[in-house]
């Protein structure tokens, strides 16, 4: 197993390199950070020239990528604009753990920018994922056991309605009903935006109450996909011979469903969840924006709109590493769930 993991990690290195090249070149064509710094007016030509040079944006894309990858402390940079390198570079590159500094929040290290937001995203997304998995398992198993019953049809219909609705609509609607209208009607109401009320502070109660609407919005649209998937895999497993054998042996229904059927039905579900988990790090872009949740999704959106390449690359590479890592973990969980699988 250790050999397998080591082999997979080694394979991941060139993969991550290729991903970084593609992302960097795409990102460099996404917009103009100097234009985004102008405020409400067009950037002055003298400022554009100076900032382009100072931020290293005057270099060819390949050179900018190399600096991002291995740093520029081995060469000099032109600080005063006379065309001659006069000062040693200070960047170490990501292979030496330096993700650079943000162009928007000038001087702030990318790792610090991301570290501030990552916990907030994990709080929101892990809570949402737990709600989604638990809810979808309950609905999926229930629907599979009572296929074509009235309840199954109702659940299916509601799932698809939820799945069909854009998340911004659900988010704004729930905010308006539970935040605005409930307050207007004199009922207990939920907060509309933010992670906590600044007047009160970041208490557990505050974070929990501010999480309700975002988690509800994320969960509602995800229930459908997960529950339908669980339903179909459960139906497939329930029609297998070994389940019939288990029934013939007179095993209790609960044991058949949860021990024999669900464990085997979990294999493809684990794949889906395994692929979804690393994406949680990226946050929920729309939900975080609407509910002003200070997470990674909003960070990504804020900085991509200002063409802040170092921060955006930091986020994307974090997700890429997480995807690769979780794929390895998924493979290991496979072996645990299905003893027939061996990684030798």
């Amino acid at each position, binding site marked *: 197993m250790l050999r397998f993991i080591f082999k997979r990690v080694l394979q991941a290195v060139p993969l991550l390199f290729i991903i970084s090249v593609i992302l960097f070149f795409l990102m460099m064509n996404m917009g103009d950070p100097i234009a985004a710094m102008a405020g409400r007016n067009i950037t002055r030509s003298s400022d554009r020239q100076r900032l382009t040079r100072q931020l290293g944006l005057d270099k060819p894309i390949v050179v900018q990528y190399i600096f991002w990858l291995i740093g520029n402390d081995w060469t000099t940079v032109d600080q005063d604009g006379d065309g001659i390198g006069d000062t040693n570079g200070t960047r170490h590159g990501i292979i030496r753990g330096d993700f650079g500094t943000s162009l928007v929040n000038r*001087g702030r290290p990318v790792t610090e920018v991301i570290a501030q937001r990552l916990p907030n995203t994990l709080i929101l997304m892990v809570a949402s994922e737990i709600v989604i998995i638990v809810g979808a398992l309950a609905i999926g198993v229930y629907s599979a056991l009572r296929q074509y019953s009235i309840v199954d049809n109702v659940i299916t219909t509601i799932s698809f309605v939820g799945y069909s609705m854009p998340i911004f609509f659900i988010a704004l609607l729930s905010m308006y009903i539970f935040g605005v209208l409930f307050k207007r009607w004199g009922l207990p109401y939920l907060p509309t*935006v933010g992670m906590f009320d600044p*007047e009160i502070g970041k208490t557990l109660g505050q974070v929990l109450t501010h999480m309700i609407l975002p988690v509800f919005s994320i969960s509602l649209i995800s229930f459908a996909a997960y529950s339908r998937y669980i339903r179909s895999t459960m139906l497939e497993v329930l029609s297998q011979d070994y389940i019939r054998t288990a029934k013939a042996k007179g095993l209790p229904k609960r044991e058949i469903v949860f021990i024999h059927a669900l464990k085997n039905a979990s294999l493809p579900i684990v794949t889906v969840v395994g692929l979804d988990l690393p994406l949680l790090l990226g946050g929920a872009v729309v939900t975080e924006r609407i509910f002003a949740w200070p997470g990674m999704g909003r960070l990504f959106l804020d900085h991509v709109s200002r063409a802040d390449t170092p921060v955006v690359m930091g986020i994307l590479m974090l997700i890429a590493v997480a995807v690769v890592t979780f794929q390895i973990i998924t493979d290991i969980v496979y072996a645990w769930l299905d003893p027939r699988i061996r990684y030798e």
Partner: protein
Amino acid sequence: MFRKAVLFRWLSLIMIASMLLAACQAGAGGEKKVLTLIWTQEFDSLNPLYTNMWFSYVTHQVFLSWAWEFDQQNNAFPKMVTEIPSTENGGISEDGMTITMHLREDMKWSDGTPLTADDFVFTAEMAVNSANSVASTYPYDNIASITAPDPYTVVINFIDPFAPWLATLWHGVIPAHILRPVFEAEGTIDGAEWNLAPTVGFGPYVLDTWESGSFARFVRNENWWGEEPNIDEIFFRFVPDDASQVNALKAGDGDVGTFIAFSDVPTLQESGLSIVTEPSGYNEGLFFVINEEFGHPALLDVRVRQAIAMGIDRQSMTEDLLLGLTQVPASFWDSLPFYNNPPIENYPYDPAAAAALLDEAGWVDSNGDGVRDKDGVEFELTYGTTIREIRQNAQAVIQQQLAEIGIAVEILSYDADIFFSSYGDGPAASGEVDIMEWSDGPIFPDADVYYWLCSEIPSDDYPDGSNWFFLCDQELNDLIELQSTQVNSADRQQSISQINQIFHERVYWLGLWQDPDVWAVASRVQNAQFSGVTPLYNIVEWDLSE
């Protein structure tokens, strides 16, 4: 059935419990007067040298101050100086090359350190030092030398007479006693902690916390040297979505919101919020590319541009799209009556006259395809702007109205950072679209403009030029250069009036609607007044009712 009942009961209990929890939390605010402003964009930097962002520099009146600020009528009043320099009080030399400022002697940083002329000199030096990647070196790059003959006097010598000094100088001062050691140690202040956490300031409040993506909290400055503020704490809450901002204001999760869309005004008013509009010098308008190499050849003819001005029903557009809450600007200097003098009169909406002008210019529909043409060239224009919803609506209306006078328009929309990218990358700077739309204005409340200078036309050799209209009108160019050096206001008024007249007659720019700052203010906020330059200028007078 029993299971369903249990499930329903649990769900109900969870929902009620969460709402009661929210209700309990909401009541735990305490006795402090706390004001919450909703900002739809988060600050990039709180160091005034490192930002051009409106949402950042507007906070300066909270934790910093400007040397002079501007009131509701956008008139300047002294803040850090004993009086605003003028030729009458000897603050400005006869040749306009030297400004002498006398500082208040009671100013202190929030850590108790006296604020002196040294801080001003240090600020100007840091702005132009090539080691610092400041947002803009302007206007400090116009200074030849700056000295502090005593702790409370600053003498500025300009390279040339510098007319826009009042509107552009000293938008905040940075603390020399904190940042000079950083500069000496690191050779730059780019990475200074103070830039993003200026816990030492000299405004009525001082930064307590800036939680990225969430909020910034300012508390009373115990060493504040001005009038005591009424409010204890100020929160800037970052809510990036416009619809969420409206909901948050309605729900009372914010007291003040800004950049309110005109379409949201009625619903906010119905919810009891006051709407305040304050001219900020900006007007939404059309910019024409007028050049033989770039742009459509028809736009070279002034009669064609006048026809376009008369072919668009701008009045109806403001009434229908903007609910009649703003006006059609006749001049680029519409919100500066001193310079829009004599006031320009708008072109009327007159499609018949527009068609006649186009006929006169030789643009007729010779092939019967519904689009005018001349010498085998079809009158088909490209019209680009950013993806902002109101702009896309305006594009659709203008496309339809110009079609009615035989002008075909292809509408194009871009993300702002792409649209405003530099020559070679951005469609606007590269002359790829014939008509461009955005909101802009002079360096308000100053009248200075520079975009139309001939020397600013971008090219392969000078890709950073800001004359994206590729227009070189020598008469206009000379007047723009002249006014920027005229420190005598009467002389300058005359020059700007001539520029204004040229803009109007030659239709170099066509205003669509005035674009004032629109604020929504909760009923519990008292004494709130806004300026178009320093919006929070009277923040110490703001109060909250019970």
